């Protein structure tokens, strides 16, 4: 068809008229939302509560419209942990609440153990099912065959679980906490003897020497870590804090530190002892502290006349710098410089704690790192290692004697912690599947799973699945359809943390006890029920004796009871602005007590309005509380370990001193695997949040799916190019991942991020991580994993 000039002009003019009239009579296309639909309107209220997406315990303010729609989560400015800020996880709580993966009603499995089909049932029926099972086990005198596997859980909820098991008659409260940041580290426990974890006053330290602790990315309390980093780098601070990161991979923390010291994987303990060698050799250590508050530094003669080698002789004999430098790959002058800085820039802390690195370092490595704090006396001082105090909640009344439950409680635990093989273990969740499968020491009939997702997180996941299939009844309290819940027989869905009433005791990095109140910001969206309420309800249905152990009507009544302890203590005050904090401190230091509430009702009301209670004071120098070892001192030579291993009759003193194992070479699998945790991904559970998955690998420009980091030279050697898909294979199994070349990874190391959802694909690093635990604590020691890489 030919077109004349006139046609063209006609077309032009008509189209311009059309365009103009389009402006005259605006048309709303169906895909255009109106403004009001996108931004919901309503009367807003701000409800203070507490985040629960990691153990940090940040105070949040939830913006709720018309009392029913949550639209924003922000930090609570009065809360001493978050002080008005939050990490990205906190903001993403919205997507947790409104997640499509939420379980909306109680569910019962249909079609046998291998099926993944569930049917909806009512709450009354669901509770009756569990209660009748509990009853029948009690009638058969098999109360001990009931166990609870528990993840992150604090305060009265934890106490209620413990009480439920005690009253019922089972010893099996199993903490699946090998992965939790707040677990007391076995190495630190051996030296300090305290069953509670220590904290490091990061913002007041002048020198932070971190051994593989990725504290600026995946700390147990990220907001406190980020704020400390800000304060350390404040240009008004004199002197500015210095941060050194010792790690085989350039992590986010290493990238933000003043110095990154690449080290051969698994040899961090040797470097720590090399630094100790320099501190002792040059007399730089705190001699006053070492002589007053430590045990086992100098060699000594015991009452039977045997001479024991002390830490000093041990380090001077075995860890000269050239040897340490050879093992660690760190130049001698760097070690000298680190030691001198560590001694001169006081207060200084040596940090080994993190979340997953917990499982990448052996107990002795951690002991070696902690011994540096001991040498410099960085205990009970501002900017040092502190042992936090806990909020004074009232303890529950004792349970009336019941021969049936006493007998059950005294049975051995199903996961057999503290056994000869792992003498330092308190819980052995990874031992659970084997014991269940072998009926050792007895068959398990009923398992409750609360806030834990072992099929996602445990390195023995395959056997966990088999075990779950074997147990006659598995009850999950998960709010989401996660990997473990699929294998449950019954799901009693919990409220999310935004719909639940709960207390949340925690502490700041300065050791102040903090009691926050997690209160429902909206009514539960679905037919879910808070698990503490379910426990109270169940106790009333089992029998009278159980019922008498739970004299409370509901969980709020339990909370009021627990809060009485806080009121009676007369300590601390409600959260307030910094001025009020200083005022409380001034008064308390002078022996005055003037909390802003006068009675229990006012305390209850104040906690609801402000978000919680705290006591901004730390009493330094309570050495008996801090060092609970036999010598009441910090022990370089662990008498706790000696006591635990007395049956083995070990004569060599080195075994009780920090003696980190030398990493073994493996021919078939030459590469070391380092699993790191991205801040955006929670560690214990699989968070259903697209926002977080979308921000996961910021530096690598990778998101949604995990990847494997390889040194470019190593990749060249293996014939791998950037973004190739490769198999990562260990002796246990293999996973397929996208290779990313990353010069910040040492040539013999590969790194994989942890925490991406499994999605039934082949990329959960759990599938290749070693099952071999740390020999003393029984905790998974993933740092031992060796792999090889090849192209798909």
């Amino acid at each position, binding site marked *: 068809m030919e077109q004349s000039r006139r046609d063209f002009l006609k077309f032009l003019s008509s189209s311009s008229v059309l365009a*103009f009239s389009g402006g*005259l*009579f605006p048309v709303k296309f169906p895909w255009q939302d109106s*403004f009001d639909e*996108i*931004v919901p*309107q309503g*009367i*807003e209220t701000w409800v203070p509560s507490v985040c629960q997406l990691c153990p940090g315990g940040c105070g949040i303010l939830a913006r709720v419209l018309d009392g029913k729609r949550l639209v924003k989560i922000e930090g609570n400015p009065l809360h001493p942990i978050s002080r008005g800020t939050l990490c990205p996880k906190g903001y993403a709580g919205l997507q947790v609440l409104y997640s499509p993966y939420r379980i909306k009603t109680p569910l019962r499995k249909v079609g046998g153990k291998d099926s993944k089909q569930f049917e909806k049932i009512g709450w009354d029926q669901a509770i009756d099912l569990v209660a009748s099972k509990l009853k029948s086990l009690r009638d058969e005198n098999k109360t001990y065959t009931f166990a609870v596997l528990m993840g992150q859980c604090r305060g009265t909820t934890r106490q209620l679980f413990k009480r439920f098991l005690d009253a019922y008659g089972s010893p099996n409260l199993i903490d699946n906490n090998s992965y939790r940041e707040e677990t007391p580290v076995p190495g630190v426990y051996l030296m300090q003897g305290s069953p509670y974890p220590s904290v490091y006053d990061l913002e007041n330290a002048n020198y932070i020497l971190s051994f593989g602790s990725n504290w600026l990315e995946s700390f147990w309390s990220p907001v406190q870590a980020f704020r400390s980093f800000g304060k350390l780098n404040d240009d008004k601070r004199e002197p500015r804090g210095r941060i050194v990161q010792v790690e085989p991979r350039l992590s986010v923390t290493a990238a933000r530190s003043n110095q990154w010291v690449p080290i051969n994987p698994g040899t961090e303990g040797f470097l720590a002892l090399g630094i100790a060698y320099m501190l002792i050799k040059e007399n730089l250590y705190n001699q006053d502290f070492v002589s007053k508050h430590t045990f086992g530094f100098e060699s000594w003669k015991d009452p039977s006349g045997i001479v024991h080698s002390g830490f000093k002789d041990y380090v001077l004999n075995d860890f000269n710098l050239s040897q340490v430098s050879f093992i660690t790959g760190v130049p001698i002058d760097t070690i000298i410089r680190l030691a001198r800085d560590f001694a001169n820039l006081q207060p200084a802390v040596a940090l080994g704690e993190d979340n997953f690195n917990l499982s990448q370092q052996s107990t002795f490595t951690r002991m070696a790192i902690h011994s540096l704090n001991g040498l410099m006396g960085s205990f009970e001082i501002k900017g040092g290692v502190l042992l936090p105090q806990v909020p004074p909640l009232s303890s529950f009344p004792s349970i009336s004697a019941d021969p049936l439950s006493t007998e059950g409680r005294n049975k051995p635990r199903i996961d057999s912690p503290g056994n000869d093989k792992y003498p330092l273990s308190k819980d052995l969740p990874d031992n659970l599947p084997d014991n269940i499968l072998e009926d050792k020491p007895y068959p398990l009939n009923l398992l409750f799973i609360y806030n834990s997702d072992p099929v996602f997180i445990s390195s023995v996941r395959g056997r966990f699945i088999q075990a779950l299939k074997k147990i006659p009844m598995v009850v999950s309290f998960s709010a989401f359809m996660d990997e473990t819940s699929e294998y449950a027989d019954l799901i009693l869905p919990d409220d999310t943390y935004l719909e639940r009433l709960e207390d949340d005791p925690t502490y700041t990095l300065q050791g102040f006890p903090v009691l926050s109140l997690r209160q429902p910001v909206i009514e539960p969206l679905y037919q879910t029920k808070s698990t503490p309420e379910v426990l109270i309800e169940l106790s009333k249905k089992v029998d009278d004796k159980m019922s008498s152990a739970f004299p409370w009507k509901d969980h709020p009544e339990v909370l009021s009871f627990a809060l009485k302890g806080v009121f009676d203590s007369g300590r601390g005050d409600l959260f307030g602005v910094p001025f009020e904090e200083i005022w409380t401190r001034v008064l308390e230091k002078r022996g005055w007590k003037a909390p802003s509430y006068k009675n229990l009702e006012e305390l209850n009301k104040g906690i609801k309005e402000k978000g919680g209670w705290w006591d901004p004071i730390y009493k330094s120098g309570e050495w008996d509380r801090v060092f609970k070892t036999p010598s009441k001192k910090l022990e370089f030579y662990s008498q706790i370990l000696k006591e635990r291993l007395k049956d083995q009759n070990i004569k060599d003193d080195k075994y009780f001193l920090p003696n980190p194992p030398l990493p073994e070479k493996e021919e078939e699998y030459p590469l070391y695997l380092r699993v790191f945790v991205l801040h955006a991904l929670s560690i214990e559970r699989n968070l259903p949040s697209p926002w977080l998955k979308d921000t996961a690998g910021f530096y690598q420009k990778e998101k949604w799916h995990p990847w494997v980091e390889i040194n470019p030279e190593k990749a060249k050697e293996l014939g791998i190019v950037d973004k190739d898909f490769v198999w990562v294979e260990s002796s246990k199994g293999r996973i397929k991942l996208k290779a990313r070349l990353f010069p910040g990874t040492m040539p013999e190391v590969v790194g994989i991020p942890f925490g991406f959802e499994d999605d039934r694909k082949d990329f959960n690093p759990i599938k290749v991580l070693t099952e071999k635990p740390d020999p003393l604590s029984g905790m998974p020691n993933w740092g031992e994993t060796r792999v090889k890489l090849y192209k798909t």
Partner: protein
Amino acid sequence: MGKIAFLLLLFIAILVLAYFWLQSSGVAQPVQFNHQLHIKKVGLSCEDCHIYFKTQRFSGIPSMDICAGCHSEAQGKSKEEAKVVNAIKEGKTIEWHRIYRVKRSVIYSHRLHIVAGKLECKVCHGDIADTIKPPRRPLVKISMDRCRDCHSKMKVSVDCITCHK
């Protein structure tokens, strides 16, 4: 001749279109509400009808209950008032239209500006109190420059994140 007539017609057409354009742009309210009468003569304050601006982000378009406080019975002879009285009697809602909007990317809070910033309504809403019928478009053009100028003058942060979230 034909050419002149064509140009004249075109000119008239443009005028007509321009008139319609001016008329149709802006927002027509269902009732010609007289702010001046309510404020200057009756003596109401802004907060009597826009009840939320001290506590919420929005100031709130008055609900029918607020109108019914006075207009459940006719107070005068105005046709516009009769619309309101009828609507109240029939239980209908008058659909007032918003004319002030900020971009979607901006989070604006009346509470912050009025309570913390101590601004008067007219800083942004102009002489709305003197109008005898609802304006078709905002009396004051709200632009980012205007926000920034005022923020700088009042020594309030002009960081992007202050308003854009």
